[in-house]
């Protein structure tokens, strides 16, 4: 750090005919001063809680005498919480379920977003703004509301979907079938996420210089070829970014299954990893195990994210490095 700053100041001094001493003093303090608010907030609201969670994960509330109901005291238990939470088969079932969920949500959501973005980017599209807003709108609906809304649509007795099937005379789908309920949950995430990703991709598409398309057209390329050969390759960085965002969102899946849970017998309180953490912390009042599982999960996601990022980066931005 210090090395960098001095070198910077040094070159700055060499380039400009300003008193080198004065400049050095100014640049040594100022950056830190400007960083201070951000650093303070970062420390108070991110770093401190993480450290506190780490501390909690090594402790537990235990009964230590004192009457029939006992008096609980916080004691140090080392890695006990980790051992217990990581040896719980339910955690791995939940992780497996999350992986399946991710495999469904990410490709479907990004695929649809890309398709819509490309369609909207075609020349001579009518009602472009209205359509874009229409597809984007679900993203503006809070996850809790969206899940409640879909919950109503899924429950047979209150669902217009079932009514529609009945009218046509088809057997109505069971949205809470134990084998396919994951699709019902994924559907809510896709519904809410397509719009946002589409807008990001569409914005990137509008930034591509139109001359490229002109020359492609002169070379006889069809719109489809332009989309496949020019637009998508140029969108790669955006696809990587939205992909990583979606992966992170998958790791954090919680709202949709948690809201649907009381409506059915098929979603348990540890259906997804974060639900298990929530149950531990707020239903069982065991914030210590919850902290341990959180730390383990956060560590695993960090490693995974870095891995994905390095692979993706090499492929997507290879020529830049």
């Amino acid at each position, binding site marked *: 750090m210090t090395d960098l700053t001095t070198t910077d100041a040094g070159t700055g001094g060499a380039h400009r005919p300003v008193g080198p001493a004065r400049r050095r003093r100014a640049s040594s303090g100022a950056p830190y001063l400007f960083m201070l608010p951000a650093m303070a907030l970062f420390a108070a609201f991110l770093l401190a809680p993480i450290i506190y969670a780490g501390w909690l994960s090594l402790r537990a509330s235990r009964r230590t005498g004192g009457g029939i109901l006992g008096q609980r005291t916080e004691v140090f238990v080392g890695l006990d919480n980790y051992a217990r939470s990581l040896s719980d088969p339910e955690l791995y079932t939940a992780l497996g379920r999350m992986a399946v969920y991710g495999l469904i949500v990410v490709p479907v959501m990004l695929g649809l977003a890309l398709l819509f973005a490309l369609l909207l980017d075609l020349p001579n599209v009518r009602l472009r703004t209205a359509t874009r807003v229409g597809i984007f709108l679900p993203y503006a609906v809070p996850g809790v509301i969206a899940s409640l809304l879909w919950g109503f649509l899924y429950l047979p007795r*209150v669902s217009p979907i079932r009514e529609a099937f009945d009218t046509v005379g088809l057997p109505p789908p069971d949205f809470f079938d134990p084998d396919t309920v994951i699709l019902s949950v994924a559907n809510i995430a896709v519904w809410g996420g397509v719009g946002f990703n589409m807008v990001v991709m569409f914005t990137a598409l509008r930034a591509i210089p139109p001359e490229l398309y002109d020359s492609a057209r002169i070379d006889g390329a069809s719109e489809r070829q332009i989309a496949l050969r020019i637009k998508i390759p140029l969108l790669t960085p955006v696809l990587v970014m939205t992909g990583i965002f979606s992966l992170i969102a998958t790791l954090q899946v919680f709202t949709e299954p948690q809201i649907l849970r009381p409506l059915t017998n098929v979603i348990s309180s540890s259906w997804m990893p974060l639900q298990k953490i929530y149950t531990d912390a707020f*239903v069982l009042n065991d914030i210590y195990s919850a902290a341990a599982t959180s730390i383990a999960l956060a560590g695993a996601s960090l490693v995974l994210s870095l891995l994905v990022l390095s692979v993706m980066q090499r492929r997507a931005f290879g020529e830049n490095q």
Partner: protein
Amino acid sequence: MHRRLLMSAAGATATALALAACNGGGDEPDANETTGATAAGDADAPAELAFWTWATNIEQVIEIWNEQNPEQQVSVDRQAQGDELITRVLTAAEAGNEPCLVHTEYQALPVLVSNGVVRDLTGDVADVRDAFPEAAWGLTSFGDQTFAVPQDIAPMMLYYREDLFQQYGLEVPSTWDDFAALAAQVRQVAPERYLTTFSSGDPGWFAGLAQQAGAEWWTNEGEAWSVGMADEATTRVAEFWGDLVAQDLIDDQPMYTPEWNAAMNDGTLLAWPSAVWGAGVLQGVAPDTAGLWRAAPMPQWSDGEDATGYWGGSATAITEGCEYPAQAAKFVKWLNTSPEALEAMITLGGLYPAASEGQTGPALEEPPVMLPNQPEFFALAAEIAGTARGFTWGPNVNVAYNAYNEAFQGAIESGGSFTDAIRSMQDATVADLETQGYEVVE
């Protein structure tokens, strides 16, 4: 740690003050408690008491108190309800800014006690003990210590659709055998309807059914606990409902969902084993069916028996961190035993008071809105309340309840056995007690 130091210091000061004022008030045998189990201090001294509660219209009840006691003002804070409120109280106590007064469901009280959040009120409230039926007082007492004053109790009773029962020629079941036969009859005469549903989402409901059968889920023997969730009585209840579900004689979808609301409204479900507050719930979920329901005592396990269980109910507790325990105790006693407060809670809050005196009187002469056809509703309720069996709630009800949800969800989805489900509740509860450091005996 910090908080505890501060608190014992405050407790010591209070005790010193009390001694200096020759206030005595120390007929409490447990004198080695620093904070003193009898509220040291003057119950009439000025105080500001925060009350975390979720009771309906409680503000209007408290207005009566605030008018009469300008020096001891109580303010209501609606933080959350039920278990969620408990989580918040625990967190607030950890941070040292808990309120003076806490509304808690009976089964959540042990968690508040073992975390040292609520005061031992044994000495403070001994003078109102006789105002409550023994079973109700037992819900807030552990061993010989009392930690809260019962507010409302919820004896279970059976609600049924009088109109549909008449239409199909069904008879109100007096035993559970009748109930099972009736469930089969309903499927025959009206295949699109069910007598009722078994809900994997409501452990408190199942606990009430088990209480009725005579179960004791937690028993303390000295300082050790024994857990009996797979005892004979509970097994009987589990087998009974498991059979009905397996044969599709009753529905198996959870209660309190939009689906259930619709089924209660359109007559898909004909009956609901619920509690005295069930009439209020019906008003919320099935307003179109007013006048069509009727309440009856619960079906019995054997002819001539007369018992029911509790589903829910709540109490008022005072926190350890409360600066004005004497004033708080005075308020808690007023709230739960004075005729004016009881009447206000019944008429404004729709509560069924735990105090014996509250279970009769002019406020209960009018039937609930949903059962205008049953003017004797509350007289019946009082009679049923007299037959209620509670049981001792143990230190980890939340674990048992979560295990109930998981086990019965699984059993219903996979067609598994209900007796396996209670066994897995039992195992989870015992394992947790042991992990937490409680002594468990078989």
